[in-house]
């Protein structure tokens, strides 16, 4: 099986524009189609170490970011495609890369119910999985990126995938999305960070993605048991602290962060209860990344 980095740029561009490039990403195969230059460049930088799926593979998600009509080219717009249909309005072509990544998240958020899904970053150290749920802007991605640059394994920046009735986390490793000041904060944290194309003026401001499969075994598909749940919150004005959170309150908060808790019905309730009864829960208030990474190291001993 070959890696994306073994494809020369010209072959990658060619394949993206014709039948699409099939990539193994966690438990899924994504087919990515595009005729926008930034997409090829971004994928070559951020997905270099991902495996190309063998020909004739089952494809889970057929996605694309393309300029298809003359009107789109004239107006500098591009559209996200899913199943070769466009579910959303067009976006400025300068924001294409961010929208492809969002679209790839959306496939999992909307169409997958074999797992209990939490809106959370997931990292692992010494075989222990840590789930970090958070609303957008809570600082989970920034902390996740910093951990990824400090020898931790990043299982996901967006989705905790938990097999109901277990504490098993299925890795869905993809680049980590950084927004606005987080981009500079992470560059200051580690000048060697590999970033993809910058998308400016999106509804979330400036967005850039970070190559996150730096740890060995980043693409191992085996599940990792969850050990802890940490609710991170970035705050410049409050003292930094790490403290225990009651399980009952954690249950309610984790359910709030779930994409499909209610779709799963009673099984969702049981799955969440099992998870919360098995993992210890913490709140982490931080503004200094070095401090936060050190605290996380303490937690896993």
């Amino acid at each position, binding site marked *: 099986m070959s890696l994306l980095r073994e494809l020369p740029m010209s072959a990658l561009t060619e394949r993206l524009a014709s039948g699409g490039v099939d990539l193994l990403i966690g438990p899924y*195969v994504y087919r990515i189609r595009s005729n926008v230059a930034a997409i090829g460049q971004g994928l070559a930088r951020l997905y270099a170490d991902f495996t190309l799926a063998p020909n*004739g*593979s*089952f*494809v*889970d998600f*057929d996605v694309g970011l393309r300029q298809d009509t003359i009107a789109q080219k004239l107006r500098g717009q591009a559209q996200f495609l899913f*199943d*070769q*249909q466009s579910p959303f309005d067009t976006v400025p072509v300068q924001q294409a890369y961010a929208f492809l990544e969002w679209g790839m998240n959306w496939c999992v958020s909307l*169409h*997958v*119910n*074999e797992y209990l899904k939490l809106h959370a970053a997931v990292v692992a150290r010494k075989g222990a999985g840590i789930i970090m749920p958070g609303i957008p802007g809570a600082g989970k991605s920034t902390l996740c990126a910093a951990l990824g640059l400090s020898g931790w394994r990043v299982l996901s920046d967006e989705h905790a995938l938990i097999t109901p009735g277990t504490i098993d986390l299925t890795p869905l490793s993809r680049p980590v999305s950084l927004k606005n000041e987080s981009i500079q904060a992470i560059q200051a944290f580690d000048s060697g960070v590999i970033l993809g194309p910058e998308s400016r003026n999106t509804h979330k401001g400036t967005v850039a993605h970070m190559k996150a499969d730096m740890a060995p075994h980043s693409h191992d598909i085996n599940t990792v048991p969850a050990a802890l749940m940490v609710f991170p919150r970035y705050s410049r004005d409050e003292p930094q602290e790490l403290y225990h959170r009651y399980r009952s309150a954690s249950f309610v908060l984790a359910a709030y962060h779930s994409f*499909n808790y*209610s*779709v*799963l*019905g009673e099984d969702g309730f049981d799955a969440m209860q099992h998870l919360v009864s098995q993992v210890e829960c913490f709140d982490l208030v931080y503004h200094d990344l070095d401090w936060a990474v050190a605290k996380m190291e303490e937690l896993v001993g």
Partner: protein
Amino acid sequence: MNTPDFLLRDALLRPGALPRMSAADISMVISQARTSRLLASLAARLEASGALALLPESARRHFRSALLVHHKQRRDLLHDCESIRAALASVDLRLVLLKGGAYLHTNLAVSQGRLITDIDIIVPREHIEDAESALNAYGWESSQLDSYNESYYRRWSHETPALVNPRRGTTLDLHHNILPPTAGPTIDADLLFDSVKEVKPATFTLSLQDMVIHSATHLFHEGEFYHGLRDLWDLHQMLQEFPQLDASFWDGLVARARQLELDAPLCHALRYTRLVFETPVPARVVEEATGWAARLRQPLMDFLFIRAFRPSHPGCRLPLTGLALNALYIRSHYLRMPLHLLLPHLVRKAWMRRKDDSATALENK
């Protein structure tokens, strides 16, 4: 005339064949089914035939996920309908469900895996205002429209502007008829109310024959065909199952459609379910339903509908599909409204859209 095959059709008709397809073909079937809003319906067929267990896990999980969404919609629907039933009961009205909501309250084949987007109900026209204010009191809020759209709905439509339950995120369409009063046929809605069936205490649906006629009317007056294949699949399921439930289903079906002035859409339904899904319809019923005018129009209608009833996938679109869809869009408008109403309406809408566009353009600057 035979329509060219597409993989989704084969999978729906012969679910047992899916596990023998190649991995690439199975992904294509899933993709076409998702696009056509038929993934959960196909999943239910696979589950019932035992074929689901024979599929590789990579494919099976998509079908299971779709079924979970369907089950969730069914749970939500029963909950929402209870609130609607209570609201209507407070003003002595009965809950009569239409389309998806009606199917999901039955154990009919058409309900298996059927996804819904909103709830449709019908009340007698003279009670529509009572119904609306009762629903408002039970948490179903009327949409805020500008005065043109509001008066358009009230005067020319067969439904009120959609009601929304903001806490539950559900949309409710409140009808007093099944076609707008501006459309050609003038349907006597009392005929529909006279033959409703109670499916559970104080919850009603149309009779089996009327369900088919309504589904056909809705589909063949439609201007956009995103759900066209799904709606045709509904009709196929009904036409296959209903004669087994009621031995006299075929007798009087055409006469009932004539009585409601809806024989044209029924004739289309009988033709295109047979052409696309090989639905067994007795020859005498087809003969009875197809008048000379329908026969004359058939080549043109075949050209249009055979293109509309395919997944909107580049791999299985027929040539000239864009043209056919545009023609059907225009057709739907003149079916709904005579030209002296339609033209001013379209001009007004175009003008309002222009104003909206320039307003947003200004805001963006």
